[in-house]
């Protein structure tokens, strides 16, 4: 019997080894361990054994059964694994085919520039002030030290609607309105982005509608050096940490002193290139100390308060930053243009 058992074990292990799929393995299990299998048969035949032999034989039967069982289980795991692998292999796809496109639009490049500037000044404690685009002559000119008949009004040919109402030519009236709201009490710390209009023929460098961002700080003891520091900070955040700025004297009716502000060229770093036309500097802003007449007209005591103001054109900044060659692109809304500003 012992030999029979050993033979059975060997046979079973061989068959298990040979089983190629789960079905064949199951057949082996039924054949050897099933109720009608040879091992059960051996067990049945144990009745003929002596009581001394029985336990020994019983142990042997169990040993054989366990060995077969273990081999079966091992093989089962192996086959199952193979089965899964086969299935997965069949499921393989071409990962190089295009994915399901996700629609994505984006900001207009001007909004991109404006929001960047807004955030930068918000970080420095400014709030954003907005005002009407159709404006009173008073706020657009008079409150900014440009009385009727002032020669500098020639500088900005305007779209008038009536004698007293026009499309604002700059965002400065928002400054006048904001100061007025403060009723002579500082501090005022705002930036004013928005659309403005001038009587220009549209061409590559002119647009009858464009945008501006102006800034205004009014408080006790605001100095011109603060303007320089603020704008240097702005230039570095906007155009790169190693940028520098310079002031050139200029004239605006609403500021005195007035300056134009150049930023060292972010393309060549100041050595001279075609972006800065060889000068190493790019004119970006107009700025100055708020004219005392402007402060007084808005209800501020110009002996007690001083302020600075600055203004810039998002179109110009965007054109420089992205190398755009024609201002009309901003208002044509050609998707082949707009789509180019689709990433961070």
């Amino acid at each position: 019997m012992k030999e029979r058992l050993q033979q059975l074990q060997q046979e079973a292990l061989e068959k298990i080894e040979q089983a190629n799929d789960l079905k064949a393995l199951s057949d082996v299990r039924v054949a050897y361990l099933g109720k009608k299998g040879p091992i059960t048969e051996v067990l049945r035949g144990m009745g003929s054994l002596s009581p001394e032999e029985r336990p020994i034989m019983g142990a042997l039967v169990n040993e054989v059964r366990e060995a077969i069982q273990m081999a079966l289980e091992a093989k089962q795991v192996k086959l199952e694994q193979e089965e899964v692998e086969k299935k997965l292999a069949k499921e393989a796809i071409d990962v190089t085919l295009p994915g399901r496109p996700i629609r994505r639009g984006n900001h207009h490049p001007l909004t991109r520039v404006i929001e960047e500037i807004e955030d930068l000044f918000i970080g420095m404690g400014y709030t954003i002030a907005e005002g009407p685009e159709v404006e009173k002559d008073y706020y657009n000119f008079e409150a900014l030290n440009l009385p009727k008949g002032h020669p500098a009004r020639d500088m900005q040919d305007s779209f008038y609607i009536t004698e007293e109402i026009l499309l604002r030519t700059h965002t400065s009236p928002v400054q006048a309105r904001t100061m007025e709201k403060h009723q002579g009490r500082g501090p005022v710390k705002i930036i004013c982005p928005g659309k403005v209009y001038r009587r220009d023929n549209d061409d590559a460098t002119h647009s009858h509608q464009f945008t501006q961002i102006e800034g205004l700080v009014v408080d006790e003891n605001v100095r011109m050096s603060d303007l320089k520091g603020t704008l240097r900070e702005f230039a570095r955040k906007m155009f790169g940490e190693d940028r520098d700025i310079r002031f050139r004297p200029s004239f605006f009716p609403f500021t005195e002193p007035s300056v134009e502000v150049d930023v060292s060229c972010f393309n060549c770093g100041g050595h001279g290139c075609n972006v800065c036309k060889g000068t190493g500097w790019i004119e970006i802003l107009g700025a100055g100390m708020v004219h005392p007449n402007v402060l007084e007209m808005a209800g501020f005591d110009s002996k007690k308060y001083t302020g600075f103001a600055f203004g810039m054109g998002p179109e110009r900044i965007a054109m420089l930053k992205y190398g755009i060659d024609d201002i009309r692109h901003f208002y044509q809304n050609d998707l082949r243009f707009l789509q180019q500003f689709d990433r961070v």
Partner: protein
Amino acid sequence: MFVSYKWLQEYVDLTGITAKELADRITKSGIEVESVEVLSKGAKDVVIGHVLEREQHPNADKLSKCLVDIGEGEPVQIICGAPNVAKGQKVAVAKVGAVLPGNLKIKRAKLRGEESNGMICSLQELGVESKVVPKPYADGIFVFPSDAPVGADALELLNLDDEVLELGLTPNRADCLSMIGVAYEVAAILGRSVKLPAIELHENSESVHDYISVRVDAPEDNPLYAGRIVKNVKIGPSPLWMQTRLMAAGIRPHNNVVDITNYILLEYGQPLHAFDYDRLGSNEIVVRRAKNGETIVTLDDTKRTLTEDHLVITNGSEPVALAGVMGGANSEVQDDTTTVFIESAYFTSPVIRQAVKDHGLRSEASTRFEKGIDPARTKEALDRAAALMAEYAGGEVVGGVVEVNTLQPKDVVVTITLDRINNVLGTAITKEEVANILTNLQFMFIEDNGTFTITVPSRRRDIAIEEDIIEEVARLYGYDNLPATLPVGEANPGKLTPYQAKRRHVRRYLEDVGLFQAITYSLTNEEKATMFALETAEPIRLALPMSEERSVLRQSLVPHLLEAASYNRARQVENVALYEIGSVYLATNEHELPNEKERLAGVLTGVWHAHVWQGEKKAVDFYVAKGILDGLFALLGLENRIEYKQAKREHLHPGRTADILLDGKTIGFVGQLHPIVQKEFDLKETYVFELDIEALLKAEVDDIRYTAIPRFPSITRDIALVVDEHIVAGDLEQAIIKAGGELLKDVSIFDVYKGDRLPEGKKSIAFSLRYYDPERTLTDEEVTAVHEQVIKAVEQQFGATLRG
């Protein structure tokens, strides 16, 4: 303003500083030098030649064969094409080997068989602009005065070796519209002194009052009028040096008298006018406002009709000049003029500006009056002009000046402390530095313990207050020396307003779902102004539009978005999804500002989604547009307060348009473009929307509150309702929600059917209803009870039947 470097040296010592360096210094201190031009433009080897012989070229009608002495050995033969070349002339000769502007090299040549050893040059060929070349030489060569030395450098004689600085003057710096004004500025920058012209005036024993009298009837427009008589003048060309200076400044020479007035205008910034005394037609000058309808023929031979807004110089009865702008043809100086009346006056800016505007006439004179001249130089300029006319026109200056002077000269005195200067600038400039700057500016001042009392010279009309002095100090101290600091005041945190923050969220949302932000023009034409408008008002029209297309303010953003879509489609970009946030302008009344309202609009056309190799392709339809808006309303927490109502709107598809209501109030629309409008814009099926974004962003919304996450299972029941075709899903849904009460948590539509399997005029809408109680597990019986109520409600309200 064009400034000749050589001429400027007459008033200020420029030793050791080149034109280019000077330009940099001027720019850095406040006046932008826009260009520095070398007049000769690289020309060289052009000399004075003497035309010894001139004969017709044997083989060419239009050419002359000339024998020219150029001061080097034998005279040379030169073929010349100029019609005015003649024997005895002194001319500019570009020798063989010479270079002319444009790098044109002169070589020995044969012209129609005749040898030519050089070229006789016109001024244009030497780089002078045509518009300033004296008229007699406009179509030929330039003829030099007979005393021009043969062989001398012609470019030097023509002052073409000079350099010219073009100043870009801001309106406040009208003082630099004169050579003397520029000299003061340069002197201040360089710390040098100004040398004024010496005037040597010899008057005869006659009295000007025997010749002419002056009356000013409009003293506000003309506070100072002065004049002199110069007799026995001989009209002829002005000296070459004067002509060349005028040309360098952009003024065409005419004759000695006119050139002198222009020369003084450039030198002093004081416009002058020379009348032919014998042609004035009277012995008096009356300055007055013109009468309505009065006319004058000006020097440009144009008849101009005047109004009371214009100032005229008259001979007592009729105008002889449009004051400060242009003289009259009737009293013009001509070749036979012998007696000249020189006018030097101060006209105030507004009346001149009005004339310039009304007549479209801008002259060197009017520009200066418009910007404001220095009346302290008016009489000095007059004297200098008279002296020059004596010297260069052989005239005799009649004794005395006729003058009407109602000016009340008042010194401008500004007092400022050193502390104030430093406090405003953020600097630590010393008393001595400030004193030094004021001295260089030639401002008179007294300094007492850090307080400066400054008397501003009348030439600097731009300086009146402390800040002006601060600016003078700052620009001459140098902005590069200004420290960079940050404001030290009380610090407030910067922040967007809730409206601004939400608006940014809206932009990002729309872009994240696939729309591009557009920015279109606010000005449009009359027709488009009101198209699609949510609210309409009287169109707001520009008083003086540049074109009809941009003449009226828009009341809706949609028309320009459609134009943008159309623009793209015309360029093969068929799939367009654009949105814009911008203002529309609604008139209130003529004297008030319009109501400016912010709107959000969008346009969608073409394919919305395509993933073709997997068989997905979806064109834009109404529900794409609506879905985008649904998402927007959900983003703003308003989804349960929004309602869509079938609507008819002009320019939109009558069956595919919905009004959008917030809390029952219409705040926008979404719909398909009407096929007719679609065709007008050359578009395919297109959907548009416009919303009152202010209403959306200003609606009060509760903050987010956490609600417990479901712990019990929910039960879902589906029903398919058969109803009349005209019943809309939204109404059914509302009824279901109402009947479902607390337990009904979700209703969604999963099928809509209309067709053969239903009776004519019917449709079926299938809803999925989810019931849930946060406190416990619902039983089937409880759900059934509520569900029955729902079914009953729709049966009763809409005659709905359950689809079998």
